């Protein structure tokens, strides 16, 4: 068994501590950027939904500002965002490199995407439900929590799944700022040094990660479908 493994993946075993470190780095980046991005994207998506024309807290100025900024950041390729945001990263995180330095660009790269996903999920709520809640004397805050969020747990779970998987993809590029992670590991050894087994191992780990995220998302969405 061990011999087969050595034969199949000689380089991987050689670089195993680096491999584990890469998994850990990717995990940290996804969890941190994901958690921060989830909160920010959710808030921005809600603000877009309630301030839109005919929304419960209609406000054209706020809506327009968030709308434009979201489009702006969505149109910048992540690889450019990574370097462009280095000064901001230094300001917020104290460094622009390593895993810590990648969090800020990852948040900026995923929040606009997630904001649109949230906006789209919330827009599926029947306006009649909002009107009914208003007629029952619900406050705007209650309408957000008890109607918009409560009634779109399924679509929001799906939106989160899609964003988390795309975030996982973004972390592969974070190697540019020396953040490490699986993408960087695969490029450094698998590609640059032609260690094919390392590329394969990375891909397998990523497939597992994507499958787990998708399964969790689907599970939550399914549980809230009535």
């Amino acid at each position, binding site marked *: 068994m061990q011999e087969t493994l050595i034969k199949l993946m000689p380089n991987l075993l050689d670089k195993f501590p680096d491999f584990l470190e890469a998994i850990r780095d990717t995990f940290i980046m996804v969890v941190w950027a994901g958690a921060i991005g989830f909160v920010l994207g959710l808030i921005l998506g809600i603000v877009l939904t309630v301030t839109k024309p005919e929304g419960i807290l209609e406000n054209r100025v706020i809506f327009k500002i968030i709308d434009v900024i979201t489009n702006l950041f969505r149109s910048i390729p992540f690889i450019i965002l990574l370097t462009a945001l280095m000064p901001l990263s230094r300001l917020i995180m104290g460094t622009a490199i390593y895993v810590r330095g990648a969090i800020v660009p990852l948040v900026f790269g995923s929040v606009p995407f997630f904001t649109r996903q949230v906006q789209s999920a919330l827009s599926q709520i029947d306006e009649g439900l909002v009107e*009914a809640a208003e*007629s*029952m004397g619900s406050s705007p805050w209650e309408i957000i929590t008890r*109607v918009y969020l409560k009634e779109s747990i399924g679509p929001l779970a799906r939106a989160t799944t899609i964003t988390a998987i795309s975030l996982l993809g973004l972390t592969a590029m974070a190697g540019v700022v020396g953040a490490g992670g699986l993408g960087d590991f695969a490029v450094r050894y698998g590609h640059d040094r032609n260690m094919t087994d390392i590329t394969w191992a990375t891909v397998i780990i990523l497939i597992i990660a994507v499958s787990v995220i998708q399964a969790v998302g689907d599970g939550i969405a399914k549980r809230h479908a009535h």
Partner: protein
Amino acid sequence: MIELQNIVKSFRDGGEKQVDAVKNVSVTINDGEIFGIIGFSGAGKSTLVRCINLLGRPTSGTVKIDGVDITALSARELREERKKIGMIFQHFNLMPSRTVAGNIAFPLKHSGLTKEEVIAKVRELLALVDLSDKENAYPSELSGGQKQRVAIARALANDPKILLSDEATSALDPQTTNSILALLKKLNAELGITIVVITHEMNVIKQICNRVAVMENGEVVEQGDVFDIFANPKHTLTRNFIRTTSNLSKVEQMVEEGLPGVAPQKGEVLTRLSYRQKDVSEPLISTAARRFDLDANIILADVEIIGGAPIGGTVVIFHGESSKIDQAIQYIRDKHVGVEVIKDARNPD
């Protein structure tokens, strides 16, 4: 009492074009009555009713409920006021992720009731709308009529004094419509709740309303007691609405189609008699036939009880001497029964 005074509601139609959905409408709805607002879609009736709970704020005019101008309330006060005004909708608007009990309990949050009291209240409401066995069902598992019953229970959760019904039966089949209307009538009788019904179906008005306002192009063209409106509709639109509910209006079509037995033979007159007063009890047709020596052939009859009094009429073919027929028609008219001559076959030209 709900007093809508000089209500105007205008919308900006995308660009600069202004649309007046409601134009200077004044309506007073008394406590405990079932008030109907009828009109075709786009007549402004939904916009008008949304001014009662300010889901849509009127551009100008005042909305008074029990003497209080609610357009002057703060946002918080308005939310409290809305809890006393229940509303039901054409498409029910139940929360799909909540059970029947969860939907009915929705407006009871912050009501100060304990969890046990909320459960008790929900069960009481479910019993009221006859759905006790559906407490834990989800809306998707219910029929349209059941969904509307849940919506009614939810609208009644805070013991409102007013219930607004926005086309609540328009998405339901006729049988279910009748059962929902019966329920509304029961709630009005048992709880004394004032009900404002919006509809495009004259049947709904006929079955449950005390008074009615007829709307067209944002204006109320006619309003009054339902019996009076049915007996003496003044506006063409009102007449058209009434026609949709009566079989007597079918006679013109039947004559056109040449159905046997409908068309008058030579020397006969086809007439429609309409009862317009609450005290028609004389056997008018047979009296007239005897007195003027005529044959009266009743080919259609449709009499209904509206607002506690019979209303409707008959379609009759009179056969006899030409001058006697005229006298008979005059005699019946003198008894305050409307007579329309649909087809006169006495003069062949």
